[in-house]
């Protein structure tokens, strides 16, 4: 590690970073870190997603309105080439791919290496750790997750990454709990959470995407997503159900001895809305970064697979441990399962996949704090 002055930042620490993934999160992370002078190498299981980066040697980015070229980004053909020298491995993939990448990364884990799931969403770190330790019970590595992606971003068809907003106040946590200075060096806007339960339960996508999709299922399917998901899709009734999901979430967090923020306050704190004085409806109306985002073109979407199967399902698992009834979350999961003919209860991130089967609250809390 070199301590130099770079871009006027005192005590800048240049890190060697591997970024795993080929979509929005991976492109945004790579562009952002490279523009901040870190040494970035990308890897994705489908190499064609990174072909443009490989040819250009970097990524075209528009960061909060400013067009820039993030140069000197390497692309590795094999995962070992990306991670073997890296101090931090940022896994920026849909949370449904965590198990796959955990298996792929297991042989390369090192005690002095940090794996960061950006995002972890709900139960990312728990499942990741469970996968690795199932293969190798002695594997040692530092593991962290963020509650949501650290950017509001979209990748265009031409391979330009548009970063609408670098989210502020995004929560991150380590498993077991504690600070991670390398992660904080890469992402200075992060806020440390108490533990991965707090980050997992602060997954805002899992709270708002399911009602938005289930209660607009006909609209999505018939028009192939021809409406503005947040601006038009979040009508008063959809907002009410989002708030009902949120109440179940808050109750679970209280049983976890956490101090929960309402969805609207979380949404506000990361910069996704300018209005937290009302409810979800008002917050969505004032969501500038989400204003032009269209609904998915079909119900075969991460807004369901990820945000329900790997979002609401693990939340209900925590709910069972907490002794909290979750009829609204259950209702959304059941309807999603019928819609996509997938049993999300078992195919999603169950307590078995999280590695918390049979735990009561006391055991779960000590697991995420010290014993993981």
């Amino acid at each position, binding site marked *: 590690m070199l301590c130099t002055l770079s871009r006027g930042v005192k005590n800048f620490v240049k890190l060697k970073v591997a970024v795993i993934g080929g979509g929005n999160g991976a492109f945004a992370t790579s562009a952002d870190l490279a523009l901040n002078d870190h040494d970035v190498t990308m890897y994705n299981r489908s190499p064609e997603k990174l072909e443009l980066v490989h040819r250009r040697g970097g990524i075209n980015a528009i960061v909060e309105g400013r067009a820039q070229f993030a140069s000197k980004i390497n692309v590795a053909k094999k995962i070992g080439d990306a991670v073997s020298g890296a101090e931090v491995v940022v896994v920026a993939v849909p949370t449904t791919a965590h198990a796959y990448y955990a298996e792929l990364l297991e042989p390369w884990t090192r005690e002095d290496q940090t794996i960061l799931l950006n995002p972890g969403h709900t139960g990312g770190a728990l499942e990741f750790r469970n996968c690795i330790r199932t293969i190798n019970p002695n594997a040692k590595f530092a593991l962290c997750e963020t509650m949501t992606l650290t950017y509001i971003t979209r990748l265009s068809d031409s391979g330009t990454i548009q970063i609408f907003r670098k989210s502020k106040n995004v929560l991150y946590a380590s498993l077991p709990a504690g600070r991670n200075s390398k992660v904080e060096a890469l992402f200075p806007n992060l806020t440390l959470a108490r533990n991965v339960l707090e980050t997992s339960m602060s997954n805002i996508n899992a709270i708002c995407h399911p009602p*938005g999709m*289930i*209660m*607009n*299922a*006909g*609209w999505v*399917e*018939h028009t192939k997503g021809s*409406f503005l998901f947040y601006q*038009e*899709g*979040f*009508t*008063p*009734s*959809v907002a*009410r*159900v989002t708030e*009902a999901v949120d109440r179940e979430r808050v109750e679970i967090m209280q049983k976890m001895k956490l101090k929960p923020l309402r969805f609207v306050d979380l949404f506000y704190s990361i910069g996704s809305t300018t209005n937290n004085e009302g409810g979800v409806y008002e917050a969505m109306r004032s969501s500038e970064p989400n204003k032009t985002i269209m609904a998915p073109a079909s*119900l075969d979407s991460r807004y369901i697979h990820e945000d329900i199967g790997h979002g609401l399902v693990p939340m209900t698992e925590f709910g069972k441990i907490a002794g909290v009834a979750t*009829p*609204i979350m*259950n*209702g*959304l999961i*059941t*309807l999603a399962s*019928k*819609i*996509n*003919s997938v049993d999300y209860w078992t195919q999603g991130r169950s307590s078995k996949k999280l590695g918390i089967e049979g735990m009561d609250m006391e055991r779960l809390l000590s697991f995420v704090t010290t014993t993981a």
Partner: protein
Amino acid sequence: MTILGAGSGAYAAAVDLKLRGFDVQLCSTFEPDADSKIKPLQREGGIHYTGALGEGFQQVRATMDPSIIRDSELVMIITLANGYEHYALTCAHLFHDGQFIFLTPGYIGGSLRFLKLIGEQGDTAGGGNGNHSGRVRICETNNLAYISRQTGPTEVRIFRKSKFLQLGTLPSKYAGEAFDVVKDVYPFLVPVDSVLESGMLNPNIVLHPAGMVMNAGWIEASHGGFRYYSEGCTRAVARVMESFEEERVAVCNALGIKTMMFLDYYKKAGYTSEEATGIYEALRASEPNRELMAPSSLDHRYLTEDVGYGLVPMKAISEISGVPVPTMSSLVHLSSAMTGINFEVTGLNSEKMGLHGVTVQGLNQILRDGFS
């Protein structure tokens, strides 16, 4: 014959029965109907009709005075589900021995509710002929015989008349007598073993809650600007309806209630093509439903009636059977969360049907003999 009610179903029935030579009077005791329906009918002298029964005008007497019930052998009650309670409470003292009350449709549990309320009136009414519930025979159909819409204060458009309806009787030991009285009204009536058999085949419960929950955002954003069946009931929506159907049939099987598949009923009633292989195809091929627009808001009978007086009693009956009904429960909970109406409290729950704490044997006895 008296028809209690002044909605589009009552208008359609009045026209239909008069065309076939029955002596029919329309009566309402709902205050708001006086100015909006009854007085216009009195001034006009009858009802203008268009659609499947042709176009024309039928003279129909209309009144706000329910004492005409005394002279009728048969009293047809054609109202929204919560209308029965109103008539049970206001007209109980007018019913006499040997009279048949014909609820069409009965919704599910309508007869049970009616009988319970009449019995309560008898016990507290003071004057009159003693225990009302002992002398009243109630029969109900599983659906309204018409697909119709009121097009003006004295106008109705009849899209389709049914070719098939089930008739249940409470107490079922009077089923033969009831059938003899009502069979001329609707020659296509088929008597079934109990009011639960007909009640469990209410098609609106299959079609409306799922479509409303899964299009709630579209409805509110567009004020019902799409065709409910031909655009809103997409494949995913139909999959949820199919799942609901499976649960409904499982409950019937567990309780020893004969039932037919919704699809077969819909074909028999003449509402769709014989070739339809599933609910999705049946709705797409349904000519009378093709142009029907979605409700312009969620404050609509597709929820207030079909959840409160459809899903809620059906779920209560399912609980007696012990069969798990996750799709049904999901639709009840989401309907409540999205409207802010606690349907399990405001709707036709176990307690209101007189079925609280009842076992399967107890249920069968009530269906056969009424309340003791």
